[in-house]
């Protein structure tokens, strides 16, 4: 909650990629890992992601996620192996009353399904983490120009990104100011609701006043209708070519693994 902009400044190849390329990569990788049910292919995706982070010196970011991912995988495997009953029975937990039928227990199918789900989650979370850590939000929004979004909307998104931390700061400041005046954030459900009132009204009123000043400033600075703004245009460079090639290779592997090999 504290930090929306989890961007970590750096000078790695991943930082220099065009945000649009990175966005497309993340979408493709997440899409493929949802579609795929082939465990070696998912492992390959994880290896590519780990190599990518090693290459750009962001391995520490991924390391901090490892305990969470292990916990998540453990619970997923536990859940699926207890609920999914498919394939060969590996460990019998409850023997069946009829000796000809297998009892209830941990099955091969359930275990594999759990492993598959955890691998999918690992790929998704890792890819997303790398994307968020290496992309400046304002660059990402500017990247939308490539999708032919009108300049007005890009400007709105850019200012909104700037507004989020300042709104948080404003809320904190008002909270502290009200505490100085002896306001008591109550306890219990009713108290919680009532305690919102002395913060909400000044917050909304203050920020509305701020937007009006901002609007006036924007107007005075000459934001006229249908005039091109000098946006920092993003260029596609050599690294983007390499990653696009990588994407195509991943896609070919996916097609090969799923349609030509049974």
């Amino acid at each position: 909650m504290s930090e929306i902009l989890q961007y970590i400044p750096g000078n790695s190849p991943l930082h220099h990629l065009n945000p649009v390329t990175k966005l497309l990569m993340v979408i493709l990788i997440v899409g493929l890992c949802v579609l795929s049910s082939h465990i070696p292919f998912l492992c390959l995706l994880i290896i590519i992601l780990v190599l990518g982070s090693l290459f750009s010196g962001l391995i520490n970011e991924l390391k901090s996620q490892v305990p969470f991912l292990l916990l998540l995988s453990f619970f997923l495997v536990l859940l699926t192996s207890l609920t999914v009953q498919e394939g060969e029975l590996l460990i019998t937990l409850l023997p069946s009353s009829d000796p000809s039928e297998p009892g209830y227990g941990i099955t091969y199918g359930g275990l594999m399904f759990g492993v598959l789900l955890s691998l999918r989650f690992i790929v998704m979370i890792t890819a997303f983490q790398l994307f968020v850590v290496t992309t400046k939000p304002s660059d990402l929004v500017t990247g939308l120009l490539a999708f032919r979004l009108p300049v007005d909307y890009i400007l709105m998104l850019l200012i909104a990104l700037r507004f989020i931390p300042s709104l948080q700061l404003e809320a904190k400041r008002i909270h502290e100011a009200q505490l100085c005046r002896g306001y008591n954030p109550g306890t219990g459900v009713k108290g919680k609701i009532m305690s919102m009132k002395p913060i909400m009204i000044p917050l909304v009123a203050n920020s509305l006043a701020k937007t009006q000043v901002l609007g006036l400033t924007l107007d005075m600075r000459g934001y006229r209708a249908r005039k091109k703004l000098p946006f920092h245009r993003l260029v596609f460079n050599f690294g983007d070519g390499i990653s696009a090639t990588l994407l195509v290779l991943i896609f070919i592997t996916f097609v090969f693994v799923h349609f030509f090999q049974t």
Partner: protein
Amino acid sequence: MAGNYHRSIIITHTTLFIAMTTVFSWISIPFIPVPITLQTLAVLLTGTIMKRYAIFPMVLYLILGAIGLPVFHNGTAGIGVLLGPTGGYLLGFIPAAVAVGLCYERSAHFINVAGLIMGTLFIYLFGISWLVYSVPMNTLAAITAGMLPFIPGDIVKAAAAFLITRRVLPYTARLSEK
């Protein structure tokens, strides 16, 4: 007035309400049986203050979330959230804000209150329809899980939106007239 003041004011109000929806969706009040976030309060406030232009902040908010910035509840993001089981509620923000906005273009209080109720109902309608469609679940179960627990919180939020708007509206720029 130099240039196009009306247009600049719409731009800055839009940015404020995108930011407000984001910040409010990170705040949650522990409430029985489900925690309520202030996200829908921000949606209602968007409608009450921006009137019919409330469609801009809501659409842009969803775009911002869809391209991967953590603006949705509890810092989640991505197109996956929009297509997930709770995505319907997020899509419902657009008609909700517009409905509230259109009702707030009139000054009669009962129309305003009706607008707030209609906005909340729009969020439920979209949310529950999508819940029934995306999760194999019958309508009754979806209403029990996705609507009944939120009703007390939403009544409080609608009342809060009404009171806050009554306090701040006289000081805001008139958006509905050119």
